[in-house]
């Protein structure tokens, strides 16, 4: 008599649900990747002339591609670092006022703005002929508009980072405040204080580690979201280097149709890098939001 049979799914609805997820979410993604791969190898596509590695060689030998990859990481990591610092500061020092009234409501405003609107706002505000430059000029701080510091289309991506941080900071502030309450961090801090910890020690040794550990998966996913952003670097970035998505679209829509396979390759490498990083980062973690893990 068989006592137990190892089953793939616990129940029929569960099996159906997972199947539906595979068909609707995973399958299109895999098909897309397969299509891009075949296109990049010259196996399909109107202008391709049969299997070749030439597109891959050309794409990977292009220094612009590697600069773009580095630049994309630089923008995303700087944005997320600034976001963490500012959102943590707001959480620690303004948590109470931010949970009520106008200040509380104002946190939601940036969340309602689409990326392209934020990009335009930053451009209008911070470009050398923008609002801030005009005020500085009227106040006599600068002699001409071009003397205003370069914050938009600048080599360091200041505008891009500012726009992304503006969008991410309120989100993470709200998120941290929620965790703060849910995890009863105030109580942990009290315990630490009873044991003789200073306020600084409470923040550094107790509060920050709990918040960051809990927010880690979301922070990672948001970093990837910033890496893939398009409108903000398109409007606020430079012609070179460009963030990955801007580079991909440029290669896809160039006058010369021969760079289309390179666009697919850029996309594929980007996907691989992201997946590899996710595997490395989450290798020892589960995707659970539980602190016990």
């Amino acid at each position, binding site marked *: 008599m068989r006592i137990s049979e190892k089953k793939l799914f616990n129940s029929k609805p569960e099996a159906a649900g997972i199947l539906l997820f595979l068909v609707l979410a995973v399958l299109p993604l895999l098909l897309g990747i397969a299509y891009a791969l075949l296109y990049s190898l010259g196996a399909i596509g*109107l202008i391709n002339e049969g299997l070749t590695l030439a597109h891959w060689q050309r794409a990977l030998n292009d220094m612009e591609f590697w600069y773009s990859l580095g630049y994309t990481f630089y923008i995303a990591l700087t944005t997320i670092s600034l976001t963490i610092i500012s959102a943590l500061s707001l959480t620690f020092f303004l948590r109470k006022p931010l949970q009520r009234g106008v200040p509380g409501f104002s946190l939601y405003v940036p969340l309602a703005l689409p990326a392209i609107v934020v990009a335009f706002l930053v451009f209008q505000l911070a470009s*050398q*002929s923008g609002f801030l430059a005009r005020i500085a000029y009227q106040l006599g701080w600068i002699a001409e508009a071009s003397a205003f510091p370069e914050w938009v289309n600048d080599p360091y991506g200041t505008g891009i980072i500012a726009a992304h941080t503006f969008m991410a900071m309120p989100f993470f502030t709200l998120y941290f405040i929620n965790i703060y309450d849910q995890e009863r961090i105030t109580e942990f801090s009290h315990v630490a204080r009873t044991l003789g910890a200073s306020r600084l020690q409470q923040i550094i040794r107790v509060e920050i580690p709990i918040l960051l550990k809990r927010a880690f998966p979301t922070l990672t996913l948001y970093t990837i979201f910033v890496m893939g952003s398009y409108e903000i670097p398109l409007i606020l970035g430079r*012609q070179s280097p460009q963030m990955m998505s801007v580079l991909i679209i440029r290669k*896809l829509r160039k006058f010369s*149709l021969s760079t289309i396979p390179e666009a697919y390759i850029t996309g594929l490498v980007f996907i691989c890098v992201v997946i590899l990083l996710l595997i490395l980062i989450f290798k020892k973690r589960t995707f659970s939001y539980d602190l016990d893990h």
Partner: protein
Amino acid sequence: MPHKPLYFIYLLMPLLVLAGCGSKQKTENLNELSWEEITDRTEGTTVSMMMWKGDPNINDYMQNYVVPKLKKRYNINLEIASGQSNTIVSILMSELEAGKTDGELDLVWINGETFYQLRQIDGLYGPFVDRLPNSSYIDFSNPFIKYDFQQPINGYEAPWGNVQFTLIYDTNRTAHPPKTRQELARYVEQHPGSFTIANDFSGMTFLKSLLIGMAGPGTLDGSFDEAAYQKYSTQLWDYFNRIKPDLWKNGETFPSNVSALHQLFVNGELHFTMSNNDAEVDNKILEGFFPETARAYVLKDGTIQNSHYLGIPTNATGKAAAMVVSNFLISPEAQYQKARPDVWGDGTVLAKSKLPEQWTKKFREIPQRKYAPSRDSLNKHALQELAPEYMIRLYEDFREKIIQQ
């Protein structure tokens, strides 16, 4: 419980369903039909046209003049979708790659660059132009109409309008605009940060004008010549790198498109903007976007003049109706309306000598624009477009030799 391999069948099912969806297109030889039969058959049909919709004047002309006229006269519904040339190319490419025979688009607004790409992928239906009765008025002897980027159009696209590249400046700020490239270099040196080009079609067209200026008129005509390109483009990049430190943002970055360039001109950051369309300065002043002191002009060595065209995708479902629409768009009345500076100000492709008397008169008496030189005086400085490969190389080299330096 099903065996594992069965899951793959479930996974493949949506694909099989999709594969079965391809519809069969009735293929009809339009060449066997008379023009009357074509207009009869297309009554009550809908034509979807894709075009650049970035200009309110152009949109107004299409929506409030062309659409109602077509409906009234031919009972054709013209639906206009917004899409620039690269959108058109990617839509058609993916449709053709997927083997879709009933395409989304019936009529597209294109010019040299798109024509070259669509011919490469066999995306255009034709030849159809000589089937259009109004094509008899078109000035096919004009090289600016007959050739698109040095490629003979061969009936695969119907000429629709003709424009010339101009530089735009503000008389309040610049009393004597530079007339040659040497004067331009001096101007830029004396007014650092006041000049740049957009890294797009307009900027490359400007570079092309400079390139032809350096090579001498006619030298680069015909198919792409690597040696000639090397020789003259080296001079071009030398010239550009010399003025680069004094360009806007020290030439370290460039506006990504001509709208951004216009914005910087209006803001006062730049002293010059440019346009592929010689009527744009009048349009933009009428809109109130450019100051009334803005003027268009061309360099002595000349600027590129080119035509824009109407094409029918090879997989269009409404080819016949698209032909009727094209025929209306090149009719004397539609061309006259389009040429009026208060409407669009687009140059006509019709030969005045071929038109009926009453139309020749009307075209002659068309109100003149105010802020750009007359078309006749521009014609004296008109340069023909070069083969498409020059444009491809200029884009690549501009990135490599200027932006990334």
